[in-house]
């Protein structure tokens, strides 16, 4: 059972809603970061919403995803609650990670979200492991890993694909080719036109799709999921997309031209999808606006909540290292550093 059935009108509207929710979340996160309300690094998903939403729509709630440093979109697409996410960005105890993770580490394994990841390329082995659990346990789940075009240069991504292909694991490798790895264009990172050619090294299907089209993503992932569930192994999907914002907030972007950005912005995945629904008569302009406004309100409420949520207490820093108490950390947590050399 898929999470959002894009074959239905209600499903398409829900997909639009989720994309708007991501857009609102990340636009707001960008502003809050600029205002100094959010510490650390923030990598925004604006422009790439169709990939996350199209992919997660095609998955069952029980399926797993692994994510990247640019993970907000994947989280919302997988059904995580923006309130808990925003609280996490604020480093609050109510956040998904009790404030310990921040933007780059939001996770909710119970919702099938194995974690954003600060290490480029680290997600695919994790997702492969979740697919391995499914195989070892005889469960009917699939596991999808998101990664960037830049990550395809990482050896561990290749190792993961090879394992999944050799063991016929129920895995899907979805590459979000947003044309850059930080400031380096994809052509300077790879020697191939389409990254989907990577699949050939592993004897699995590889396709390149329009990542600005939520339906195209949904269809490709649906097919891959069927294949995975049938025991036919993994699929490699390259979704062509673009990040409308800098690599991280504050990025001076010396590496690209305004025109390129505008050209891709003209293909905004939310606008174009909404237009299509409007053309088909499934949606009115007003309804679209209402969806957008609702998304913004939802995020504003999440911000209000996050602002007011209590900070963790300093002692909480010593929690969550291990499943069981460890004397070293227990001593530190008690402020119990004696180092007095014992009895004389």
């Amino acid at each position, binding site marked *: 059972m898929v999470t959002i059935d894009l074959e239905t009108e209600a499903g398409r509207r829900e997909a639009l809603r989720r994309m708007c929710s991501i857009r609102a979340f990340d636009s707001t996160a960008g502003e809050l970061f600029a205002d100094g309300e959010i510490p650390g690094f923030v990598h925004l998903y604006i422009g790439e919403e169709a990939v996350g939403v199209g992919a997660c729509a095609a998955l069952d709630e029980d399926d797993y995803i*692994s994510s990247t440093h640019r993970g907000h979109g994947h989280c919302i697409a997988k059904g995580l609650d923006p309130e808990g996410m925003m609280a996490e960005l604020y480093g609050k105890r109510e956040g998904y990670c009790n404030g310990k993770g921040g933007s780059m580490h939001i996770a909710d394994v119970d919702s099938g979200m194995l974690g954003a990841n*600060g290490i480029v390329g680290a997600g695919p*082995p994790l997702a492969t*492991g979740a697919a391995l659990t499914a195989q070892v346990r005889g469960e009917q789940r699939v596991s999808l890993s998101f990664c960037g075009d830049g990550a395809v240069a990482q050896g561990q991504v290749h190792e*993961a694909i090879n394992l999944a292909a050799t063991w016929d694991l129920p895995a899907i490798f979805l590459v979000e080719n947003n044309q850059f790895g930080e400031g380096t264009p994809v052509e300077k990172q790879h020697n191939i036109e389409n990254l989907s050619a990577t699949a050939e090294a592993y004897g699995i299907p590889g396709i390149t799709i329009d990542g600005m089209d939520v339906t195209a993503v949904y269809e490709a992932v649906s097919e891959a999921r069927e294949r995975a569930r049938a025991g036919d192994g993994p699929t490699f999907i390259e979704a062509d997309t673009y990040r409308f914002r800098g690599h991280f907030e504050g990025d001076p972007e010396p590496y690209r031209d305004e025109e390129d950005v505008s050209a891709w912005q003209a293909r905004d995945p939310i606008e174009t999808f909404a237009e299509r629904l409007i053309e088909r008569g499934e949606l009115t302009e007003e309804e679209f606006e209402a969806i957008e406004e609702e998304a913004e309100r939802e995020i504003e409420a999440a911000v209000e909540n996050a602002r007011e949520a209590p900070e963790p207490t300093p002692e909480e820093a010593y929690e969550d290292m*291990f499943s069981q108490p460890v*004397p070293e950390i227990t001593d530190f947590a008690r402020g119990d550093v004696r*180092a007095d*050399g014992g009895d004389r």
Partner: protein
Amino acid sequence: MSTATEPSEGRESTETMTIRAALREALREEMERDEGVFVMGEDVGVFGGVFDVTGDLVDQFGEERVRDTPISEAGFAGAGVGAAATGTRPVVEIMFSDFLGVCMEQLMNQAAKNRYMFGGKTEMPLTIRTTEGGGMGAASQHSGTVHTWFAHFPGIIAVAPGTPEAAKGLLKSAIRSNDPVMVFENKMIYEREGPVPTDPDFTIPIGEASVEREGEDVTVVATQRLVGESVDLAEDLDGDVSVEVIDLRSLYPLDTDTIVESVEKTGRLVVADESPLSYGTHAEVMARVNEEAFFSLDAPMQRVGVPDTHIPFSPVLEEEVLPGSEDVRAAIDRVV
């Protein structure tokens, strides 16, 4: 720190076996006990593992649960992390500890950090077994002792047994633990024999050192191969010097109390471990004693390890750099 299960007593009946057999029985019992436990690594199946630890397990449990992997340590250690996070208990074998560099990222940034970064909401019941140590002419890329890295790195439990009993009891605790545990096996002592409790519920709590031999004059804290050598040496010196030998067993958490108690009695400490000396495991043991038993010390603490070289191939050279009984003895002589 105690493991998922409380330390069982059940030491009534024991059987003499090698460290190799003890490890294999630990794997077998835990696989029988819990369907979620599975083993993976290079040639752990039909081949039985290069040091024959997994042996015939594939016959009993099949190729899915005793899984040969492609040569991709990062990939399969990472898959172990992902599998552990989603409801299984993988036991990953990294053939030589020198290869840990290949999958270091998955260990340091994923296995070790996930629970904390995720606010304690992820379990990580992952066991990594690997072999350490010189002595078989395997040269620098197959002879290293790197456990200090993992003892140091937060978020990882590290154990390094010196006896068959410890090998079995700790590996079982590792598998039952919901934290990532690295088990460092010294490759020269797989044939070492000793009594091992037969009760399948026997485990050894992680974080407890063991006084292998009592003594009054000097404390030798040893690990792995050097536990046996130190106990033998202590016997030899009996009458001359009374040596207390402690098998550290767990590197992290470290059983400071047992060590401190011993040094409070003897006033002298020698740490014998096969790590390179600078910034090695020894230094931490010494630091703890400094902090908690400084005023009991009658002499500067001594350390015995590899003299900051790699392990060379030639037997003459290898013999020179590997710490052994004579080095422990020289260290004892310096303080008593």
